[in-house]
């Protein structure tokens, strides 16, 4: 039997309700996921073709979250994956695809398109409020991420512009311009925040944080950010030649910025998603392993090489089922490695699934004398 395809407005309303409630039972998640999948295969032809090849269509919907066909992140470079006509695109973000494909190919990146920003903003703010602003602080945002005024197609820039606008004190600063980091500007504004007595949130990619702490160390500068300040680190080291261990990076950030290590919080997201993971509060007291938790409308699935769901504790590739991806594709496959773990919840409640990420170096073996894709890129310069 073919279910009636829900309308976009109806889906958006149900998703926003889940976001506002910050709660979604397993059954409700599956029901909404199935409806969203049905909607997307009705309006997103490339995804429908991919799903059909996997054995799913309007007559046969996935019976479980784990069955939902997940498109590789790099597919956004191959086709326009949207449920609405190009003329209705309100915002688009440039995707890099996964590391291998992004580095290996000669072509350009893909696009993650949104028909409107309300759902996207609601999702990101709800998570940010709970995971970064649980104390309700109104912070000053010092951003070491792309400035969305300079790069309107950076999803990270859009996110932090939204957060700064909605949750900031109006004196936010932006210090990453192209590949250049304005260290002087950052130091000046950090001092001003201290003078003003306003706690800050330093939003930064991991690589920019390395550059900042290196620069501060070179100058012999250790800042003392106001009490209550925090760091949101994201982005890892994709595409970078220098990789710094998390313990070293967080230690340096703590020392140079004057914030406790537990105030350095990792956010995990990707351009192809509308939602983000954050370190659980319990795991922030240590550096490794940090455990990530998804908001209720986002579910991680860890799979083996055949796409089979793996039990908790087993390392595999991470798929994301993001109900806030209403306008594109509900399920995204990555090459990121991780394992699901139990997160303590209230007594008598089934533990939720947390996610422990593994770095690429932790999962790679080196064998043979064949060139690998990353070395090929390095040769190509």
């Amino acid at each position, binding site marked *: 039997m073919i279910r009636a395809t829900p309308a976009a407005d109806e889906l958006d309303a149900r998703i926003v309700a889940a976001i506002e409630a910050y709660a979604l039972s397993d059954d409700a998640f599956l029901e909404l996921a199935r409806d969203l999948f049905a909607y997307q295969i009705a309006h997103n032809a*490339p995804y429908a*073709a*991919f799903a*059909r*090849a996997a054995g799913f269509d309007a007559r046969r919907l996935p019976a479980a979250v784990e069955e939902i066909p*997940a*498109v*590789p992140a*790099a*597919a956004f470079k*191959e*086709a326009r994956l949207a449920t609405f006509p190009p003329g209705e695109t309100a915002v688009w973000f440039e995707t890099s695809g*996964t590391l*291998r*494909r992004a580095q*290996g*190919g*000669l*072509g350009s990146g893909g696009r993650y398109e949104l028909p409107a920003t309300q759902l996207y903003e609601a999702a990101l703010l709800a998570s940010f409020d709970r995971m970064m602003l649980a104390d309700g602080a109104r912070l000053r945002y010092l951003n070491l991420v792309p400035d969305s005024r300079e790069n309107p197609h950076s999803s990270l820039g859009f996110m932090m512009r939204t957060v700064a606008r909605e949750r900031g004190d109006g004196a936010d600063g932006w210090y990453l311009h192209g590949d250049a980091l304005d260290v002087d500007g950052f130091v000046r504004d950090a001092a001003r925040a201290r003078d003003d007595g306003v706690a800050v949130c330093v939003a930064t990619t991991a690589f920019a944080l390395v550059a900042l702490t290196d620069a501060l160390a070179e100058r012999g500068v250790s800042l003392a950010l106001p009490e209550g300040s925090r760091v949101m680190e994201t982005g890892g080291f994709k595409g970078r030649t220098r990789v710094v261990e998390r313990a070293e990076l967080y230690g340096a950030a703590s020392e140079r910025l004057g914030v406790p290590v537990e105030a350095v919080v990792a956010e995990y997201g990707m351009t192809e998603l509308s939602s983000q993971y954050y370190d659980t509060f319990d795991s922030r007291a240590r550096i490794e392993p940090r455990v990530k938790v998804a908001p209720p409308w986002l579910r991680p699935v860890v*799979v*083996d*090489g*055949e*796409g089979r769901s793996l039990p908790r504790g087993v*390392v*595999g*590739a991470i798929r994301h089922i993001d109900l806030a991806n209403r306008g594109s594709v509900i399920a995204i*496959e*990555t*090459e*990121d*490695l991780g394992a699901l773990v139990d997160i303590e919840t209230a007594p008598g409640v089934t533990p939720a699934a947390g996610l422990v990420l*593994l770095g*690429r170096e932790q*999962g*790679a*073996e*080196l*064998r*043979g*004398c*064949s*060139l*690998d*894709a990353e*070395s*090929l890129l*390095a*040769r*190509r310069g």
Partner: protein
Amino acid sequence: MAELGALRALPAKRVISSIADAAERWCAADYPPRVRATAAIEARLGYTTPVVEYALDRLFFNVTRDALNATIVSELGSIDALDGVFGTPPAWARGVDRVTIVASDTTIGVALPPAIFALCAKCDVVVKDRSDTLVAAFFGTLAEEHPAFATAARARAWTGGDDPSEDELFANADVVVAFGRDEALRAIRARCGAGTRFVPFGHRVSAGRLTRDDLALLEGATLAERIAQDVLLYDGEGCLSLHGLFVEADGDELARAARVLAAAFERVAVEFPGGARSPQRVAEIASYRNLAAFRAAGGRGAVFRAADATLVVDPPREEPPPLLPRVLPLIAVDGDDAVAKYCAAHRLPVQALGVAAPDARAVALAERIGAVRVAPFGTMQAPPLGGHHGGEPRIADFVRWIDCE
């Protein structure tokens, strides 16, 4: 400090005989040092037993008196030239004093051929060995054949990273042979003396080409199985493994070729089962395959699974070969110009070109794409002992000529 030149007093033919005799002992699968080495290599690299056994067979069955003699004669003109002034014009191919060889931690026994030829030249050889101690074990057999090898052929345990005690080893060597990635080779080169001859063997890729005429032969299964062997052996992770197959076909014809190859992969995978894979490799392969499946669903190309291998038909030209274990892209081309254009666009450092039957056209293509070897399918990963691996001579680098005018 061991005394230098322990092999100098021996005639080259005696050295060669000892090496060949030692290799012959290693040809026996139940030779205890080989049994131990096999297990250690499996543990180090995760390859299956049949693959490691095949590799060791290939390594030691090749090291015969005839093969050693033929290689030396082809490069130096005579075996006797290693013992003193000989021939016309009279000259002595005197082996250099010290040779240092850095083995690769990712391969099986690559350090042995250069070590063997350096010993044939009567050099003192030190090999930075790997955890499986294959080289050390073979040197032990050599010492049993003749005690001079105990001092002339030494293996040092690999400690990883920069070991200051190794500086002398590199700085004082006349020749340093190194296998590894670009960054490792650069680091080793920097530690060599100004006059040291440095012979690097970097990581490379290999490709194959099927012409329109070859496609008819593909139906006969033998050719397809040879191609499959070049992909599956060593899980396709060697520099001589087949990483991309250029096919002069498109559309249905290309898909038909892929189907024939997939069937051959199934058969050959029985003989060469896949080794262990890390979660990262598994994820990368799955991602590449699923991306190809996404394209196929949209009408572009196709994906075939065969045992634990993947064939991807007609991937975009903008994409380099995936260089993933047991994954073969079939790239549609309309001739050798397209092959050369693809290799140039992706700056592929091509080692070998596999073809159905080597001919002048294949050599011309090899020259254009920078390959140093043209080999029939099925033999890509089984080069002869005397072959110019990496385009380099086997023994000539280890001698200095003394002309007697």
